[in-house]
């Protein structure tokens, strides 16, 4: 059965109990009200009986016409009241019947008494027999009236008993209702504990297990209710996760194998492709050295061209391998002082070509989160470019700094070298793309492709602003804290 059905049942039961209690209270109220009315009627009857006795006495003592009329009146009122009195139960009916009979008898007796005492003249002596008869009648009358009064009091007792019974029943029903409600509450609590809390605790444990990497965890809650359904969905979900995880692992293994293959390929490229180049260069030089005096200028020039080409291809192979290494290298992010790194590279360039006078303007204290060796390669490339392309500038200046751009911090390397037409800017970062002739500025055209790949691997980017004859500025950004983003698997506690 579903939890919601169970819950609805429990609610219905509680509501029914409440309804029952309410109905009982309403019934008891009516009952008490009726009984109270009955008691009032009874006391009125008793009052009337009392009146009847008083007027009867009065008549017996004074025999006034007024008393006689009053007796008539009271007797009739009494008859009406008795007739109107509601009947509850056979005992009450019996008492009422007695009362009615008594009243009638009393009235009849009173009638006899009146008839017997109507004749004598005032002032004349009444004979003994008559007096005895009168006394007898009046005493019978009084006894009857006394009995009636007793019966009326008994009627009153019945009403009281009815009130008490109603009260007792109300107490019993309320007690039963409360018991029922207590049972319903306990049942509800048990229901919540067994069908909700316990499975939820298991579910909670399951989510923790799965979060901790125990993919094999199964809930197996067999119940047909909502939680059972949820548990089945959960199991299906972990199963799906397990499957996709296995798939990812499989792809990862394939990728790792592929990576190994590429590495092996690079290795053999590095080793085997350079061998023949070495021979070409070495033996050309040997020719030049050993037979140089026997060769004419053209032959020597040709040999020199062979050497140059071999060396250029050697550089190309190296840079291509560098590019592939940059792609494959594992990032190890640290806080790196970019200003210091730039200054070291600048010093190196100054020492390499001491005849060149380049003014360096390097901002202090620039730090970034980056892989040190990759950043070194990128900066080396960018600064060498700046150095190279200011080679024909009269007062070369290379500036390195930091600025805000679109809410992000970015670094820049600006030179006042030859620059280039921005129309070619999109070709700049592709491998083997060159904007200048080899004869003007040497290079392989792989450097900037490597640089871009390095910044992309850091989650950052690089862009360029340039004008022919006015220099170029490279702006680059690294994700501010990429390592935090990677390690946010668990929320900080």
């Amino acid at each position: 059965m579903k939890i919601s059905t169970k819950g609805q049942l429990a609610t219905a039961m509680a509501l029914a109990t409440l309804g029952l209690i309410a109905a009982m209270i309403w019934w008891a109220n009516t009952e008490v009200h009726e009984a109270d009315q009955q008691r009032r009627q009874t006391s009125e009857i008793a009052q009337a009986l009392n009146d009847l006795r008083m007027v009867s006495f009065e008549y017996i003592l004074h025999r006034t016409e007024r008393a006689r009329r009053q007796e008539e009146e009271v007797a009739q009122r009494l008859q009406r009241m008795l007739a109107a009195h509601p009947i509850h139960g056979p005992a009450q009916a019996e008492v009422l019947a007695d009362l009615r009979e008594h009243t009638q008898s009393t009235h009849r007796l009173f009638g006899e008494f009146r008839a017997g005492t109507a004749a004598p003249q005032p002032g004349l002596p009444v004979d003994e027999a008559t007096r005895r008869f009168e006394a007898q009648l009046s005493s019978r009358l009084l006894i009857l009236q006394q009995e009636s009064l007793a019966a009326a009091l008994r009627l009153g007792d019945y009403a009281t008993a009815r009130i008490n019974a109603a009260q007792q029943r109300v107490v019993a029903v309320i007690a039963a209702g409360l018991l029922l409600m207590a049972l319903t509450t306990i049942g509800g609590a048990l229901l919540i504990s067994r069908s909700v809390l316990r499975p939820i605790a298991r579910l909670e444990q399951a989510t923790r297990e799965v979060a901790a990497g125990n993919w094999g965890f199964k809930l197996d809650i067999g119940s047909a209710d909502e939680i059972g359904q949820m548990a089945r969905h959960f199991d299906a979900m972990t199963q799906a996760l397990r499957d996709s995880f296995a798939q990812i692992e499989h792809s990862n293994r394939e990728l790792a194998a592929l990576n190994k293959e590429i590495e092996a390929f690079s290795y053999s490229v590095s080793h085997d492709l350079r061998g023949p180049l070495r021979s070409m260069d070495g033996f050309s030089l040997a020719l030049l050295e050993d037979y140089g005096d026997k060769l004419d200028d053209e032959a020597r020039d040709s040999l020199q061209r062979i050497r140059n080409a071999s060396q250029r291809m050697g550089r190309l192979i190296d840079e291509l391998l560098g590019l592939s290494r940059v792609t494959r290298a594992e990032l190890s992010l640290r806080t790196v002082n970019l200003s210091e790194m730039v200054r070291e590279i600048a010093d190196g360039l100054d020492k390499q070509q001491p005849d060149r006078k380049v003014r360096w303007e390097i901002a202090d204290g620039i730090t970034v989160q980056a892989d040190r060796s990759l950043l070194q390669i990128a900066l080396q490339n960018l600064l060498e470019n700046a150095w190279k392309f200011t080679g024909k500038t009269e007062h070369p200046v290379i500036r390195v700094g930091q600025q805000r751009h679109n809410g992000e911090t970015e670094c820049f390397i600006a030179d006042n070298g030859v620059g280039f037409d921005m129309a070619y800017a999109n070709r700049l970062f592709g491998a083997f793309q060159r904007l200048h002739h080899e004869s003007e500025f040497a290079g392989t055209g792989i450097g900037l492709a490597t640089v871009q790949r390095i910044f992309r691997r850091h989650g950052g980017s690089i862009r360029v602003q340039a004008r022919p004859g006015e220099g170029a500025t490279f702006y680059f950004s690294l994700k501010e804290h990429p390592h935090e983003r990677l390690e946010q698997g668990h929320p900080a506690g």
Partner: protein
Amino acid sequence: MSDSNKVILLVEDSPDDVTLTLRAFKRSHLMNPICVVRDGIEALDFLFAREAYADRAALPLPELVILDLKLPKLDGLGVLKTIRADERTQLLPVVILTSSKEEQDLITGYSLGANSYVRKPVDFAEFLEAVKVLGLYWLMLNQTAPQRTPQ
């Protein structure tokens, strides 16, 4: 210039590289006899005076081993491992001379106990310079550990 009794063992499979290396030595005025072997197994046979080199048993070990990494049969790192594992040769100076610029080869080479790691540049002039420095250091300046002759 140098003590010409000090033999150099060159382990190199490419005949071109052998020629060029020998030329570089000659041009650097290093007169030491250079023995050339073409693969890793041959290199070990030479060092431990086995098989074709059994007659070397009475001769001292070479002063220096110049080792290429990519070799037939047994590669340079395998040769180096065997050299360092044997007490007769564990102190022998070994210089790796190779095309490979792979960081991993460098790390493995040094961790297996290579004394130097020199990359063969394409430019022969640079290569010449490297060989000159190498010869100067290992054959003239460096004081090697006392030799142990193989029995």
